[in-house]
């Protein structure tokens, strides 16, 4: 399949890229990893007249802790997250997540920021970032603005990013002691989108009571869902099996799946309950270590 013709632009700095995006407005699309954009162009779901390839902008690929945040650069690839010893040791939820995204070749190109900026509720990082309480840095002509992740996903394929803005950094608060997370996904085969998936990040206090918990749901609604009722229920309680089961039931209630070729809505609700149970108990046992 041959994508429609377009003009190819390759800026080497952020201001140059922003200027091009502003100049061409709705006719321009950012090409980052391209692993969603190019398939959409082949299918004519996207037909940008101008493609702004940001891959040659230097200094946008990094994973570092700084000022109380884990900072992931706008061009950081999934494969880089997967290979990072910092992620492996301190952010198991991110390791779980990147492992189940697409396949090795796609992870070599696909970016973490693109996984969010695409605004697809079937993508995996959105739920994980909701669980982690991340922030997104959008850079435009007026400089940077910081968007809390809960305000980022507006509707299907629509995010809070404005035309002419680039997602340049993801910031995740460095978790305190006795924190951990997990991401469980059911996919029909490697590379498939989730039938459903649940992300959990949890902090326990010294009495093993849940101090903070974030729960995100993948592909069971028009946007990624933050399971607030389940979070509220579990906060201040021990993550023992009865409480985990009740929280998982509440998370399933908050899911809004639709029936499709991956299964009927009722099945997906049941699946959310099971995956939430696994993620909650997985996060709790990791956090207790």
């Amino acid at each position, binding site marked *: 399949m*041959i994508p429609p013709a*377009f003009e*190819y632009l*390759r800026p080497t700095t952020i201001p140059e890229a922003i200027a091009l995006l502003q100049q061409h407005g709705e006719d321009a699309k950012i090409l980052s990893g391209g692993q969603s954009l*190019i*398939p959409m162009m082949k299918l004519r779901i996207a037909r940008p007249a101008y493609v702004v390839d940001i891959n040659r902008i230097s200094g946008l690929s990094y994973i570092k802790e700084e000022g109380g945040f884990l900072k992931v650069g706008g061009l950081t690839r999934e494969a880089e997250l997967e290979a990072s010893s910092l992620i492996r040791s301190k952010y198991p939820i991110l390791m779980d997540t990147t492992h189940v995204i*697409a*396949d090795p070749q796609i992870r070599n190109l696909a970016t973490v920021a693109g996984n969010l900026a695409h605004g697809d509720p079937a993508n995996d990082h959105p739920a994980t970032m909701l669980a982690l309480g991340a922030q997104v840095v959008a850079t435009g002509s007026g400089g940077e603005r910081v968007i809390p992740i809960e305000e980022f996903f507006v509707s299907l394929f629509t995010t809070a990013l404005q035309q002419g803005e680039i997602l340049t950094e993801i910031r995740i608060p460095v978790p305190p002691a006795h924190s951990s997370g997990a991401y469980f996904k059911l996919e029909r085969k490697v590379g498939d989108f989730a039938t459903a998936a649940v992300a959990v990040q949890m902090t326990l206090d010294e009495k093993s009571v849940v101090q903070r918990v974030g729960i995100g749901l993948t592909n069971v609604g028009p946007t990624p869902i933050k399971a607030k009722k389940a979070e509220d229920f579990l906060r201040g309680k021990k993550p023992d099996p009865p409480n985990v089961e009740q929280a998982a039931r509440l998370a399933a209630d908050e899911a809004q799946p639709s029936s499709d070729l991956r299964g009927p809505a009722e099945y997906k609700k049941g699946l959310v309950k099971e995956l939430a149970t696994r993620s909650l108990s997985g996060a709790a046992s990791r956090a207790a270590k």
Partner: protein
Amino acid sequence: MAKKQLVRVKVNGRERQAEVEPRLLLIHFIREVLELTGSHIGCDTSHCGACTVLLNGKTVKSCTMFAVQADGGEILTVEGLIKDGQLHPLQEGFKEEHGLQCGFCTPGMLMSSYALLRNNPKPSEEDIRWGISGNLCRCTGYQNIVKAVQFASGKAAQGGAK
């Protein structure tokens, strides 16, 4: 038609260049412009991995990348595995262990396995299955592909691989 752009790449150690339309996919550039037809187009939807090549040392699905993006880069295709008329240990492994039947997925399987062994010369069976998880084979059931990669890994351990 959009303005053509110059693409310069080093393919299998050789400098190549051509003026192409920006929409030209890397796989079409490799097969039709450079006339290296070893890399296959299977699904054309980034699922099957038959078009896998190495770009700057990393495997990519060349059906899901524009040729212009590869400008200035180094590409290794299946044609680049053979050295001085000698099959690469992986190619030998696929032959010895019957790692192919129809052979359509083989170029992609070889490139993914090549990248795997370069990062992890002694992979476990699980590592191998993980390493080729972006490549589909509809004939072998994967068992003999895993054995072929193990063959190459063993040969490298004996000092046979270059």
